């Protein structure tokens, strides 16, 4: 099934939400014009925060993220909702001493970890949060130290040695023949660190609890005080495999804050870079999924195709992973006609290779055996979790920011969004495969239409306090970004939201009832970024 159009809807969802607020006697101020456009901004009282979550959930808004800010005399707290391609940001202020407000976690699973992250880093309490456990904080800073407060120095006050985080209260299962398997943080492969705690009976997983935060590098904190170029260097390293995606989101948020319009040629080149990133990562994931079920031939074939594109990146753009190719106001890489011709050739040959691999993969019973019905995420659960990207789209969630909340250049392109409803590893495999093909088509279309013009607009230093919000569709799914400038065009707040923080909980759910040996392939089929989650 393939959706090419967003669902037709006549009523503006933001309007409906405002009507609901009035009916619930909730005092709310629509900030006009919205400083976070195209997202709308509504300011509310902190005591109404919980009811807003409840209302939004009743109206089927997707809860997309939350961030806080230390404004000196007070804190501000924002939650981002999305429905039918419209973004709505709720904002409230909290007193600086003993800040507390009701939680959104009772209404949205997704709010759970993000609110715990905010509590660990800002010391904002969520009074009715169902899970009191810390999340991002291990043992690198104390329980009453809050790194994202402005009076906390970026250097912190680290102990000579950070002790291991060995007293996290994992859920325990009791009973005859129930046993526990601790895995990580150092895993058995070339992979990022994190901890998984399984409760199992025989081979069956009863429960999985993820413990992440091992690669927390203080990204939000060390962003403060950077200039736009410096922020982009950092944004490009939030998750190395999504360097274009995060750099684009950061650029867009900063450009909106500064009121800079980028040249159309730059938008197209960003689009081409982003689609190349999508192609390369999907090709890699397809290979890795083959590898996780012992189909080495698939692993080597996809690995070969990936390497060809990485080399082409290096030849055409000077970097295999495309790091640092975006600049504030545009791009730092051009696509001369020879390069366009070369890229066209490589899309044609990749498509030919995929055509050849498709029947091999499709007819391979060992893949079928391991992929089908493994790691099922039902459409209902995917919707409740707000699952993004290929994880969501393999389970009936159709959202794709490129099509549903389009930004330049996608507002001029036809973006096909493959969707499946089976929700198993096979679905996630095939959705990637189809997305890969759709990305090739987009690259061809963008190359054909590549407008002439400048590569970058002149940067204008934004006013102090200027803020911007952006949503772009990275290869893993929707990436959000919020930026606020301080004095002299320096960053005072940077909040990147990788799709991984939304999708990680899906793994806990979809692995239940599966056998322990299928965990690697389940994990790979979701492929969350640890770095993008831990920040």
């Amino acid at each position, binding site marked *: 099934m393939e959706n090419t159009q967003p669902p037709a809807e006549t009523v503006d969802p933001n309007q409906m939400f405002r009507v609901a607020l009035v009916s619930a006697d909730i005092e709310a101020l629509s900030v006009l014009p919205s400083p976070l456009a195209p997202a709308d901004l509504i300011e509310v009282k902190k005591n109404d925060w919980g009811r807003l979550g409840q209302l939004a959930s009743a109206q089927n808004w997707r809860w997309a993220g939350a961030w806080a800010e230390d404004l000196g005399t007070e804190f501000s707290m924002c939650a981002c909702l999305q429905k039918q391609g419209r973004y709505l940001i709720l904002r409230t202020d909290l007193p600086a001493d003993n800040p507390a407000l009701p939680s959104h976690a009772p209404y949205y699973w997704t709010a759970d970890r993000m609110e715990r992250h905010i509590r660990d880093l800002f010391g904002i309490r969520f009074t009715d949060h169902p899970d009191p456990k810390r999340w991002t904080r291990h043992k690198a800073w104390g329980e009453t130290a809050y790194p994202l407060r402005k009076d906390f120095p970026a250097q*912190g006050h680290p102990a000579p040695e950070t002790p291991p985080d060995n007293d996290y209260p994992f859920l325990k299962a009791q009973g005859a023949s129930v046993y526990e398997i601790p895995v990580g943080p150092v895993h058995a492969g070339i992979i*990022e660190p994190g901890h998984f705690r399984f409760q199992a009976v025989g081979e069956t997983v009863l429960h999985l609890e993820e413990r992440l935060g091992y*690669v927390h590098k*203080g990204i939000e904190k060390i962003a403060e005080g950077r200039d736009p170029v410096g922020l982009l260097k950092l944004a490009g390293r939030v998750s190395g495999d999504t360097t274009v995606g995060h750099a684009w989101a950061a650029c867009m948020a900063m450009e909106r804050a500064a009121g800079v319009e980028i040249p159309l040629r730059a938008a197209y080149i960003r689009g081409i870079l982003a689609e190349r990133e999508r192609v390369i990562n999907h090709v890699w994931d397809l290979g890795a999924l083959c590898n996780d079920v012992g189909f080495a031939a698939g692993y080597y074939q996809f690995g070969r195709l990936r390497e060809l594109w990485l080399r082409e990146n290096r030849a055409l753009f000077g970097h295999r992973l495309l790091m640092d190719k975006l600049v504030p106001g545009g791009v730092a890489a051009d696509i001369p006609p020879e390069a366009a011709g070369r890229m066209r050739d490589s899309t044609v040959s990749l498509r030919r290779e995929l055509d050849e691999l498709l029947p091999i993969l499709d007819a391979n019973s060992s893949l079928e055996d391991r992929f089908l019905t493994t790691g099922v995420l039902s459409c209902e659960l995917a919707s409740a979790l707000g699952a993004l990207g290929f994880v969501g789209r393999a389970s009936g969630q159709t959202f794709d920011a490129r099509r549903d909340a389009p930004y330049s250049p996608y507002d001029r392109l036809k973006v096909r969004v493959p969707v499946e409803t089976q929700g198993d590893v096979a679905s996630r495999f095939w959705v990637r495969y189809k997305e890969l093909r759709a990305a090739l088509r987009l690259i061809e279309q963008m190359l054909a239409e590549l407008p002439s013009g400048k590569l970058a607009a002149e940067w204008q230093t934004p006013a102090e306090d200027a803020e911007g919000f952006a949503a772009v569709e990275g290869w893993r799914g929707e990436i959000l970004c919020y930026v606020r400038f301080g004095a002299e065009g320096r960053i005072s707040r940077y909040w990147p939201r990788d799709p991984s923080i939304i999708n990680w909980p899906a793994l806990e759910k979809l692995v239940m009832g599966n056998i322990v040996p299928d965990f690697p392939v389940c994990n790979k089929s979701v492929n969350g970024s640890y770095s993008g989650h831990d920040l």
Partner: protein
Amino acid sequence: MLRLYGKIFRTGMLTERVPTVPREEAVEREGARLKAVIDKRFRGSLAIRQVDAGSCNGCELEIHALNNVYYNVERFGVHFVASPRHADILLVTGPVSRHMEAALKRTYEATPDPKWVIAVGDCGVCGGEFGVSYASCGAVSEVIPVDLAIPGCPPTPLDLLRGLLSLFVNPK
């Protein structure tokens, strides 16, 4: 199945020639000596345990690429192993997040002597874009002894391969 075999045969062998370190007399001499040491001590097989101690995952992508058909490091006798207890070399990417400090030290302790540590990527070498902060210890050498640094953001597979070879010609 025939299709699969067809694809495999048509793809053929793609593995490229060994990129060698520059041919200098001293290098050749040291290399020959070290080769003898490695052949004797490692019996021609070198085991690497990769440890991500806080990277952005970019370095991991390029380390992975060492195993693709173009680089195919296994042919040099280099294997990526699942446990530090089987490893001769720790290939560590950084910066070392404070939350990974204890795990990295334990991994180091779990690796039997003699062992070598290679810090990979600008982050592993000097802290890179993340530097030292409340959350980051910076360079790998801040946490465990490092024998060799391979800079780059990320270093390419070729850089990694050259780095590995240079470890052999500059023994500790």
